[in-house]
C-alpha cells in the first residue's frame, strides 16, 4: 500500500514537473535512459560471460589483492556495482564465499564505481557522445535479434553503452537548457550546513534513482553546466556513496543471514568513508587540488576534480578499512546472529541462491545434506538407536546390547514433520532453477533430485522394516533376535561410515572408486545374511515363516543401505576432483561387484 502510494505520488510530481518545465523533462528522461542502459549492460554481461564471472569469483577467494582487483575490474567493465553485489551476496548465502572475501570484493567494487566518474567527466562531457550512441544502438539491436546467445549478449552490451551515452547526452542538454531559465546555483549553500544538506540530497537522490553511478553522472552534468557549485557537488558525491548502500540492503532482504552481513559491511564501509570525507572535507579539497596540479588537470576543470575527489575519498576509506576486514566480519557475525537452522524447514533455499546456477546447485546440495541428517535421525530412531552412540567410537555390538528394546516410534508423523516439508521445498526449488537455466548445472540438479528421491525411498524401506524389527526385539527366539540385531548393526555401521565419508569430502583420494569397497561389503553382508537364514531354517532354529519375513526384511535393509550409498555418491563426493570422469568409467557395476564377492573367484587374487 505504502509502496504504491509513493509510486503514485512520485509519478504525479514528475508529471507536474514535466508540465512546468520541458528542460526538467529532458534531464529526467536522460536519467531514465541511463538507467535503462545500465540494465541492458547487466543483462548483456549475464548472457555474454555465461558463468565466467562465477568461475573467476571461485578462484580468487584466496588472496585479498585478487579480491580487490576482481571488484575493481568487474565494476569498471559493467559500470555498476549492483550486479556484482547480487553475485557476491548469492555466493556468500550459498556458502561458496566467506564474509571476509565478500567484503574485499565489495571494497574493490566501490573503487571500481569511481572510474565511471572519470569517464563521464573526462570524455562524456567534453565530447558529443550522442554521435557514438546511435551506431551502437543500431548494431546492438541487430545483434540482440540474433539467435546465438553470445551475439545477443554482445548486443545487450552495445545497446547498454549506447543508452548510457544517450542518457548522459540528454542530462547534459537538459542542464544546459536550464541555464537560460533558471540558475540552480542561487540555491547553493556554503559552510557546514551546506555540506550536510547536500550530503542528504545526494543520499535521497540515490535512494530514488537506485544507482550511485546515475547520481554521479547527474552531479557531473549539473556541475559541467554550472548549475551546482563545486563544493556542493562534492557533498552530493559523498551522499551518493551512502545512498548506494540502500540497493545492497534491499538486495540482501531475499538473502540469508550471511548475505545480510555483507550488506551490513557495505553499509558500515560507505557510511564510515562518508564520515571521513565530511570531517576532513577541507583536507580532501586541498589534496585534490594538489593531485590535479601534479597530473596537469586545470584548476577550473571542476568535473575532473570531482572525479578525483570521488576516487580519493574511496581510496582513503579502503586504506583505513582494509586492515579491519576480519574484525569487521567478526563484528557482523556477532551482531547478526545466525539462528540455529530449524530441523523441519529448508535452511539454504533462498531467493538469492536462485540468482546464479552455481549458487543454486550448492544450496540444493547443502539442503540435501540437511535432509540426509534428518533421514538418518529417523532411521536410527526407528531402530531404537541414537546418533551420539552411533557416531562415537563405541563398538556397535555393545551399542545394540545397550538398546535391546525398540520403543514405539511414529515414523509417519516424523516423516511428515522433518522430511516431507524440506523434500517438497527442494523439489520446488530445483524445478524453478532448472526452468531458469539450460546449463550443465541442470544435469547436476537432476542428480541431486535423484539423491533426494533415494532418501525418501530409504525411509519407505525403513517403514516396511519397522514392524518386524520391533516384534523381534521382544521375541523369545534367540536366533531370530540375533539376526535382527545384526541387521541393526549393519545399518548403523553404514551410517557411521557415511558420516566419515561426509567429513572427508574435500580430501578424499579417488572418492567415487572408494565407495565400491563399501558397496561390495553391503552386497556380501546381504549374501551372508541370506545364507544364514537358509541355514537356520534347515536346522529348525527358526520357523520357515520367520525365515521368509527375515528374507523380506533383508531386502528392505539392502534397500535402505543402497539408497543411502547412492545418495552419498551424489552429495558427498567432491565432483571438482579432476579424475572424477575417469573414476565414473572405472567404478564397478552391480554385476561386476557380484562377481567380485562370489567366493569361487576369490582364491589366488592376492598373490
Amino acid at each position, binding site marked *: 500500500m505504502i509502496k504504491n502510494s509513493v509510486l503514485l505520488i512520485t509519478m504525479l510530481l514528475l508529471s507536474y514537473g514535466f508540465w512546468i518545465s520541458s528542460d526538467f523533462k529532458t534531464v529526467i528522461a536522460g536519467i531514465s535512459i541511463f538507467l535503462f542502459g545500465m540494465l541492458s549492460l547487466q543483462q548483456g554481461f549475464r548472457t555474454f560471460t555465461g558463468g565466467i564471472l562465477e568461475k573467476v569469483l571461485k578462484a580468487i577467494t584466496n588472496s585479498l589483492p585478487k579480491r580487490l582487483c576482481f571488484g575493481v575490474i568487474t565494476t569498471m567493465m559493467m559500470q555498476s556495482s549492483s550486479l556484482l553485489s547480487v553475485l557476491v551476496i548469492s555466493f556468500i548465502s550459498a556458502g561458496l564465499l566467506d564474509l571476509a572475501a565478500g567484503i574485499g570484493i565489495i571494497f574493490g567494487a566501490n573503487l571500481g564505481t569511481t572510474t565511471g566518474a572519470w569517464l563521464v567527466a573526462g570524455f562524456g562531457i567534453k565530447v558529443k557522445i550522442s554521435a557514438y550512441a546511435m551506431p551502437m544502438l543500431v548494431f546492438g539491436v541487430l545483434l540482440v535479434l540474433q539467435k546465438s546467445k553470445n551475439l545477443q549478449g554482445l548486443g545487450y552490451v552495445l545497446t547498454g553503452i549506447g543508452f548510457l551515452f544517450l542518457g548522459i547526452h540528454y542530462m547534459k542538454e537538459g542542464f544546459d537548457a536550464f541555464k537560460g531559465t533558471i540558475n540552480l546555483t542561487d540555491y547553493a549553500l556554503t559552510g557546514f550546513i551546506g555540506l550536510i544538506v547536500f550530503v542528504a540530497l545526494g543520499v535521497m537522490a540515490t535512494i530514488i534513482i537506485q544507482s550511485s553511478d546515475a547520481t554521479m553522472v547527474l552531479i557531473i552534468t549539473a556541475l559541467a553546466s554550472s548549475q551546482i557549485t563545486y563544493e556542493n557537488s562534492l557533498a552530493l558525491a559523498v551522499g551518493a556513496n551512502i545512498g548506494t548502500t540502500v540497493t545492497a540492503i534491499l538486495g540482501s532482504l531475499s538473502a540469508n543471514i550471511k548475505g545480510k552481513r555483507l550488506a551490513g559491511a557495505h553499509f558500515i564501509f560507505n557510511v564510515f568513508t562518508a564520515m571521513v570525507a565530511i570531517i576532513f572535507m577541507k583536507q580532501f579539497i586541498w589534496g585534490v587540488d594538489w593531485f590535479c596540479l601534479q597530473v596537469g588537470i586545470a584548476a577550473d576543470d571542476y568535473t575532473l576534480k570531482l572525479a578525483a575527489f570521488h576516487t580519493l575519498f574511496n581510496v582513503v576509506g579502503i586504506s583505513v578499512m582494509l586492515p579491519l576486514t576480519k574484525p569487521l566480519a567478526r563484528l557482523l557475525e556477532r551482531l547478526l546472529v545466525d539462528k540455529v537452522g530449524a530441523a523441519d524447514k529448508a535452511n539454504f533455499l533462498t531467493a538469492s541462491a536462485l540468482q546464479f546456477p552455481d549458487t543454486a546447485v550448492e544450496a540444493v546440495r547443502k539442503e540435501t545434506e540437511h535432509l540426509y541428517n534428518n533421514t538418518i535421525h529417523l532411521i536410527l530412531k526407528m531402530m531404537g538407536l541414537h546418533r551420539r552412540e552411533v557416531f562415537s567410537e563405541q563398538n556397535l555390538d555393545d551399542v545394540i546390547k545397550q538398546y535391546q528394546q525398540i520403543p514405539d516410534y511414529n515414523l509417519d508423523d516424523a516423516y511428515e514433520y522433518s522430511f516431507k516439508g524440506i523434500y517438497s521445498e527442494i523439489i520446488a526449488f530445483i524445478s524453478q532453477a532448472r526452468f531458469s537455466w539450460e546449463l550443465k548445472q541442470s544435469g547436476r540438479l537432476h542428480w541431486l533430485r535423484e539423491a533426494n528421491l533415494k532418501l525418501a525411498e530409504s525411509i519407505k524401506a525403513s517403514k516396511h522394516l519397522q514392524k518386524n524389527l520391533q516384534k523381534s526385539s521382544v521375541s523369545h527366539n534367540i536366533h531370530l533376535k540375533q539376526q535382527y540385531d545384526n541387521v541393526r548393526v549393519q545399518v548403523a555401521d553404514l551410517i557411521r561410515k557415511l558420516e566419515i565419508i561426509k567429513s572427508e569430502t574435500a580430501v578424499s*583420494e*579417488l572418492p567415487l*572408486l572408494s565407495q*565400491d*569397497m563399501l558397496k*561390495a*561389503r553391503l552386497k*556380501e553382508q546381504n549374501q551372508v545374511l541370506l545364507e544364514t537364514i537358509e541355514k537356520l531354517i534347515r536346522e529348525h532354529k527358526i520357523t520357515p515363516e520367520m525365515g521368509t519375513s527375515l528374507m523380506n526384511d533383508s531386502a528392505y535393509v539392502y534397500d535402505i543401505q543402497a539408497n543411502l550409498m547412492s545418495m552419498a555418491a551424489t552429495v558427498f563426493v567432491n565432483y571438482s576432483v*579432476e*579424475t572424477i*570422469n*575417469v*573414476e565414473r*568409467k*572405472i*567404478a*564397478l557395476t552391480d554385476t*561386476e*561387484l557380484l*562377481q*567380485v*564377492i562370489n567366493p569361487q*573367484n*576369490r582364491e589366488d*587374487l*592376492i598373490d
Partner: protein
Amino acid sequence: MNKVKLLAKLEDFFDTDDKKNVEQIESVLIKLKNKLIKIQRRITQCKNEAYKTALQLEAEVLVAQIEKGENFLKMLHQSK
C-alpha cells in the same frame, strides 16, 4: 608452417581429449595399484581373521577396478 606440420598440429588439437583421458586413467591406475600394495601388506600382517576377510574383499575390489581401467586404456589405445 608447412602442410604436414599444420596437419600434425590439427590432429594433436583434436586428440587433446583422448590424451587427457589416457593421462587421467594412468594416474588413477597408479593410485589404485599403490592402494592395493598397501592393503596386501596389511593382509600379510593382520592376525584378526574378520578384519583380514574385510581387507581381502577390499583388495579384490581394487583388482577388479584395475583390470577394468586397464581394459579401458587398451580400448583407447586401439581406437587411435
